[in-house]
């Protein structure tokens, strides 16, 4: 067996894990499965693409590849702006849609349904704006480097793994070392009690949206850089995201990340032994297995 599947699985898993953190946070704080989360990945990728192309028009040197990478400095700059804009997009969707359901105390399943409608609208809007033709951050070709042990990776892939690792460390620090992180955990334990204890629940909700969307944007950009950018990018990742959030245990940030890696590796393994056409069924099989055997996931608390 070719060990290269480990590298492919690790990268796919990092993307799934980053996306799943947003799903798990939304679920544990707002208490509903957000079917529109995948669209935040796609929007993040397209926002970064739009901004970096605009920068490329403004400054001709900005797209000149940096060192071994396929992109110039326009991409990291665009990434920062895209992360902020994706966060704002999530806040806007919440303000327009979900906050009014929360105010009315609508049933959770109504919010799930609204997220379903939002996902459809957001995805098709991307298709309208950018058409369904795949787009790329860069057309430059990269040669994979030998890493030893039969593994190969392009400099872009390695950079993305580092970015994913740094993002996870940052989220972990936010969740464990800051006031807002503690407030988030308190709200996820018991929103009523947290409100009485003087925690600004609305601020927590805004932070959750922003954080989840920022990570979704990073995951979307990673997927765009390594594979391609399409309006269906996030939609096609939604099932793996849910599977990872549930496998990791709803509400557990490290769980989501580890489960994401597990799913990515399982997918890559399946591609190698069965074939790429069944890749999408891997998450479904894992999802059903977890729901049957251990619905609270690996790191979830018994409810």
């Amino acid at each position, binding site marked *: 067996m070719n060990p290269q599947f480990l590298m492919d699985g690790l990268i796919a898993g990092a993307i799934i894990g980053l996306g799943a953190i947003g799903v798990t946070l939304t679920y544990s704080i707002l*208490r*509903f*499965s957000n*079917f529109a989360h995948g669209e935040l990945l796609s929007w993040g990728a397209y926002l970064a693409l739009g901004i970096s192309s605009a920068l490329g028009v403004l400054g001709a040197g900005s797209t000149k590849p940096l060192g071994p990478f396929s992109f110039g400095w326009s991409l990291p700059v665009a990434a920062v702006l895209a992360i902020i804009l994706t966060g704002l997009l999530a806040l806007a969707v919440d303000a327009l*849609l979900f*906050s*009014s*359901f*929360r*105010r*009315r*105390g*609508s*049933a*959770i*399943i*109504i919010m*799930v*349904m*609204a997220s*379903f*409608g*939002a*996902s*459809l*609208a*957001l995805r*098709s*809007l991307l*298709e*309208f704006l950018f*058409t*369904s033709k795949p787009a790329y951050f860069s057309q430059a070709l990269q040669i994979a480097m030998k890493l030893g042990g039969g593994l190969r990776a392009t400099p872009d892939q390695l950079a993305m793994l580092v970015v994913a690792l740094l993002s996870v460390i940052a989220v972990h620090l936010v969740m464990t070392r800051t006031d807002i992180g503690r407030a988030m955990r308190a709200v996820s334990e018991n*929103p*009523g009690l947290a*409100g009485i204890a003087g925690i600004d*629940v*609305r601020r927590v*909700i805004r932070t959750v949206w922003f954080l989840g969307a920022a990570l979704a944007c990073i995951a979307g950009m990673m997927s765009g850089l390594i594979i391609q950018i399409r309006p269906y990018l996030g*939609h096609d990742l*939604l*099932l793996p995201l*849910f*599977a990872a959030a*549930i496998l990791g245990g709803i509400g557990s940030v490290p769980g989501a990340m580890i489960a994401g890696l597990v799913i990515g590796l399982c997918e890559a393994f399946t591609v190698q032994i069965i074939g790429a*056409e*069944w890749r*999408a*069924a891997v*998450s*479904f099989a894992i*999802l*059903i297995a977890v*729901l*049957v055997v251990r*619905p609270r996931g690996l790191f979830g608390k018994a409810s």
Partner: protein
Amino acid sequence: MMLDLVAYGAFFLTIALTYAIISLGLNVQWGMTGLFNVGIAAFVAVGAYTSAILTTPETADRFGGFDMPIVVGWLGAALVAGALSWGVGALTIRLRADYLAIATFGVAVTVQLCMLNLQPLTGGAFGIGFIPRPFAGLQGDALLFSLANCGLMAVVVLSLYLALQHLSRSPWGRVLRAIREDEAAAQALGKQPVRFRLQAFTVGGAIMGLAGAAQAHFIGFIAPDNYMPVLTFQVWAMLIVGGSGNNRGAIAGAVLVWGLWAVTAAAVSAFVPPEDQARAAALQIVAIGVGLCLMLLLRPRGLFGEVSPLARSSTKPPLSAKE
């Protein structure tokens, strides 16, 4: 000209009524029981393929082709789709409510993969053709053929409507609504919520399978593209617009939303230059998504709300503490 219009009207109504069947099936799951199915397209597809495999004439390169009567195909479709719903429900229905949503979403993805990749069974991306059409003998006369099919579909929808009306007024229907509104109370009265939910989910799935078969036989050709996620959305929009919990609403919503869809699609193909039509179609889907959200926000009970002493209450306390 006049006759063409009548023929087109009958064709339009036939398609709309096949959607009405799906919408009625969803109403059993969501409207009566509160089960959120995000994989409607999968259950419709399973029904369509089952019936196609049972009724098409023998083909060399594909399993099936049993050349059975259409009625057998339709029954088989309902049975297989019902069995699939039962399986999915049995695994997930006792878990948290939105786990069923996630599981059905996964079913839709997986069925899509199976349609594409199980080539010996489904014909892969090329789909299955030569599905026998009801009243094939009348095919020479377009008008008569359309009217006969439309009549058949009207009879199916009407019988289904009467049966479901009866079911929803029966003790079974009352138990479902009781569980939907207050599970603990229903349980205290000795009803087993899981069992009833599973039954409702299975009945709804079987109806969706039947609708898939009806559609497949009317069009005569099926392919994976017919069962994309947008089908699921359309049916949801139909039920929400019509009013969930109300069978008449489910039918009216289906005809209305399909009408709007057909009119806008016709406008797109008439007024939009060909190179932009794909984009205009995307905008059409944006409209359905936004419409679904607006309906949930502004008129959650739909055009025809539920008529029942046990109407779904729109407020539930636990989350109101947050804002």
